[in-house]
């Protein structure tokens, strides 16, 4: 009876076990038997015992006691024992085990064995699990095998060399000469191994890369041979001759052609040929086309070829196969920055993919859609994105909301649209938005002065419908508190008027206060809003007083403190109440990256009035403010005229040094420090300003802003820029091409400059526009850039 039946017997028995416990019992018995067998002298069954152990190991049981047995078996002269021994080594030994070093000698001996199958075992094992030490020891052997042996060994030696180079990159130089000569082999296996090896060498060593550029014509020949050759049954996959080799050659050509004009030129024809001749009805062909497209986009190919490549990706987008659509979107994502317009053409299909059932495809479509948002398509694209948000899988929600907010901020066509969009997002997915959304939205609302009435009506209605979404409720409470008088007045041009009674409003706020769904922060908002209403409503002030006094004994310390202070405001300082609770002024947004008070904590301590007005309002501490201010004002006897100033100090922790500075604030209410912008062009009423957003050692981001002081709109505005040779320029999509008249609006365009050689940055900008039906064109030279805000 052949001993291997015993292995299959064991497997059968293990599979027959009905419970986990039974299985464990069987395995324990077997392992004990195996251990005993290992301890015995050689009896011809060692390989089978090890095989049994490997099976047990695959089921997840410990098998470390087999490691030494692997070492012993590898050293055995018998082929079948060596075979299982090497298999065991690959499964049980990895470079972290000490025992792996012990097989180095055996491998060395086996590499020079007379039988090529023994050699191949050693090569395979070294190529899979060889540690850096082993690689260093055996590299010369591998090099020898690369040169003077048959194809079967050469191909294995090549991949073994690949592994060695990955583990010990310095040894790459050793293999370079041999790998060059391997390119003239006919055997596909060897050729493939050679291409992989050369790719690895070129990726790690720029000198080697230079050297192998000379091999580009040879590679092109090989590739041509594959594409145009007749049918080879051995290598044919769905009509493509050896797609594996083709893809690897394309990848190598990509590396060789990158940033090099000569190499790229030599490859242009070939790529065009492959792109047009490859049949992509099956996966094999699509794989080759995919690699071709990646190569075209990465090297310096001519524009016709690039267009061809993007068209291929567009065709992929329409393919029924989900995999191909996914691949296409992944590739488009890579090129969306550089070839923005080309990708825009496929926007419709990409947006359709948002509705696909598959989660992977959805994710890709979302990323790509967000990258394609521009001033021109913002309205339609946002509709699609909002639709997507309502049905999108939970893991994508946070990403979608932040993407929508970013897009809305950059390209909002009007403030009302912006507010509507944010409200829509909050109602649909308010639980997944970031924390800064609330202060951001509040700041946005205050700037849209004409829309206060509309906003508060809308928010009130949202509040009445549903109070579970905390972010929405917080904003709604703040607005109702601030603009409650507009709400109660009833009429509003933008939306149908609803009569809202004071009681209804107070009911709504009280519901929020009392609901268990409201977080402590939300309740704080609601309480403050209620308090503010005391100056905006006429009849129910007593009701407010009673609400406020109830919360004077609330368990939540924050609410209690507020309530107590508001009570004080009612009782002792009633004469000041109106002034203190007056409407807040418009909050200015500071430069990008403004957050809650925390990040500018230092400046709060400095008590700089300008910095204060810059910070976003977090109506969390007005009570504290009121208290301190009252103390101070009570002390100094000053009338509280500067209530706007006082309200804007409602930020972060305030120390009691507020006194002297408050008086400073009276004069010091000022604009925020705007990042310096330089006027670079001023003619025909058109002004072009340049502002540096970010500056690093090797590049900068600038924004060009165009305004128009004439009394007719300026149309067809285009900006073109040129920079010194070594500097890379990337112009983002402009916010539009029409500058409204009378300075009512502006067009902005962001420009990214990458200056790796750190040359002195100069830029020439050509401005073209149509003003009063006359086409104008001017060029300006910019020699120096203002320093950035930060």
């Amino acid at each position, binding site marked *: 009876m052949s001993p291997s039946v015993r292995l299959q017997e064991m497997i059968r028995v293990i599979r027959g076990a009905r419970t986990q416990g039974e299985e464990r019992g069987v395995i324990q018995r077997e392992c004990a038997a195996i251990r005993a067998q290992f301890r015995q002298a050689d009896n011809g069954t060692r390989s089978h015992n090890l095989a049994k152990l490997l099976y047990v190991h*695959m089921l997840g049981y410990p098998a470390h006691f087999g490691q030494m047995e692997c070492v012993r078996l590898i050293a055995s002269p018998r082929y079948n024992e060596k075979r299982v021994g090497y298999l065991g080594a690959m499964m049980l030994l990895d470079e972290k085990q000490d025992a792996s070093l012990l097989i180095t000698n055996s491998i060395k001996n086996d590499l020079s064995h007379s039988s090529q199958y023994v050699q191949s075992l050693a090569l395979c094992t070294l190529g899979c699990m060889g540690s850096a030490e082993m690689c260093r020891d055996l590299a010369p052997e591998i090099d020898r095998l690369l040169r003077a042996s048959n194809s079967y060994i050469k191909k294995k030696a090549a991949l073994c060399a690949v592994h060695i180079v990955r583990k010990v990159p310095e040894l790459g130089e050793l293999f370079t000469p041999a790998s060059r000569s391997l390119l003239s082999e006919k055997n596909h296996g060897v050729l493939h191994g050679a291409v992989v090896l050369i790719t690895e060498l070129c990726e790690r060593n720029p000198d080697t890369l230079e050297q192998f550029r000379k091999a580009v014509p040879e590679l092109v020949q090989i590739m041509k041979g594959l594409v145009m050759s007749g049918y080879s049954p051995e*290598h044919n996959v769905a009509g493509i001759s050896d797609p594996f080799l083709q893809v690897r050659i394309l990848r190598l050509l990509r590396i060789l052609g990158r940033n090099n004009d000569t190499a790229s030129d030599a490859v242009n024809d070939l790529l065009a040929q492959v792109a047009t001749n490859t049949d992509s009805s099956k996966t094999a062909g699509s794989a080759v086309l995919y690699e071709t497209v990646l190569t075209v986009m990465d090297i310096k190919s001519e524009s016709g070829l690039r267009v061809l490549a993007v068209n291929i990706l567009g065709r992929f987008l329409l393919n029924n196969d*989900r995999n191909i659509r996914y691949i296409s979107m992944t590739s488009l994502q890579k090129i969306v920055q550089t070839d923005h317009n080309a990708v825009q053409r496929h926007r419709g299909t990409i947006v359709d993919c948002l509705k696909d059932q598959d989660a992977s495809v959805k994710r890709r479509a979302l990323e790509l859609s967000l990258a394609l948002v521009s001033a021109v398509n913002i309205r339609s694209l946002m509709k699609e994105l909002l639709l997507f948000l309502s049905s999108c899988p939970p893991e994508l929600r946070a990403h979608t909301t932040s993407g929508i907010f970013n897009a809305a901020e950059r390209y909002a066509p009007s403030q009302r649209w912006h507010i509507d969009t944010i409200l829509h997002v909050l109602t649909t997915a308010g639980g997944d938005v970031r924390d800064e959304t609330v202060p951001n939205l509040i700041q946005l609302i205050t700037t849209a002065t004409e829309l206060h009435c509309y906003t508060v009506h809308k928010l009130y209605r949202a509040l009445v419908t549903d109070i579970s979404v905390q972010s929405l409720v917080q904003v709604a409470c703040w607005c109702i508190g601030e603009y409650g008088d507009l709400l109660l007045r009833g009429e509003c041009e933008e939306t149908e008027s609803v009569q809202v009674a004071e009681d209804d409003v107070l009911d709504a706020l009280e519901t929020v206060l009392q609901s268990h769904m409201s977080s402590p922060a939300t309740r704080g908002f609601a309480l403050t809003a209620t308090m503010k209403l005391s100056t905006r409503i006429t009849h129910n002030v007593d009701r407010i007083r009673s609400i406020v006094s109830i919360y004077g004994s609330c368990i939540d310390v924050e609410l209690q403190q507020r309530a107590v202070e508001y009570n004080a405001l009612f009782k002792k300082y009633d004469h000041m109440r109106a002034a203190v609770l007056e409407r807040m002024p418009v909050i200015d947004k500071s430069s990008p990256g403004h957050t809650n008070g925390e990040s500018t904590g230092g400046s709060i301590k400095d008590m700089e009035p300008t910095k204060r007005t810059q910070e976003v309002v977090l109506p969390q501490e007005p009570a504290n403010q009121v208290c301190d201010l009252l103390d101070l004002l009570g002390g100094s006897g000053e009338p509280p005229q500067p209530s706007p100033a006082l309200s804007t100090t409602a930020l972060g922790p305030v120390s009691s040094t507020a006194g002297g500075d408050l008086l400073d604030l009276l004069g010091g209410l000022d604009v925020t420090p705007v990042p310096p912008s330089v006027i670079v062009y001023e003619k025909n009423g058109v002004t072009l300003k340049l502002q540096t957003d970010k500056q690093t050692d090797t590049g900068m981001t600038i924004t060009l802003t165009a305004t128009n002081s004439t009394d007719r709109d300026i149309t067809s505005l285009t900006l073109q820029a040129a920079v010194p040779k070594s500097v890379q320029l990337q112009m983002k999509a402009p916010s539009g091409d029409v500058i409204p008249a009378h300075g009512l609006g502006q067009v902005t365009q962001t420009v990214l400059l990458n200056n790796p050689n750190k040359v002195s940055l100069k830029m020439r900008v050509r401005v073209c526009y149509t003003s009063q039906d006359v086409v104008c064109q001017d060029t300006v030279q910019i020699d120096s850039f203002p320093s950035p805000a930060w």
Partner: protein
Amino acid sequence: MHFMLLLSRQGKLRLQKWFTPVTEREKKKVIREMTLMVLARPPRSCNFLLWRDLKIVYKRYASLYFCCGLEDQDNELLTLEVLQRYVELLDKYFGNVCELDIIFNFEKAYFILDEFLVGGEILETSKTAVGIAMEEAETLQETMEEYMSKPTY
């Protein structure tokens, strides 16, 4: 390629090949996560996933899920072809391969894989060469075994 796993529909591991050094504990973790991710995918969905910093390509053949972890530059569509080729090689060797073949002859499945992939890269692109190599190795093995088990006269 970083690893290749064969998982049964019930989540049992049938074959594991690791091309990078990974601790036992980490291996178990990866296997568990792959099992959860891949087995949960609905039919006819996209065969590509993103996991940590790897691209995962999987394909279901009858009751087995073949699952690979790829680096960023690897071509996913080509990997689908790699999996297809491996299944074809198994099929040719075992004749209408099924999961049981791979369970009871796992060491043969490994040997075939080692003739096809080494160090995560494709070793042989010819359909026939792998089969020929397996046959010759078997002959060598049988000759040895016969020799060993023959009674000495």
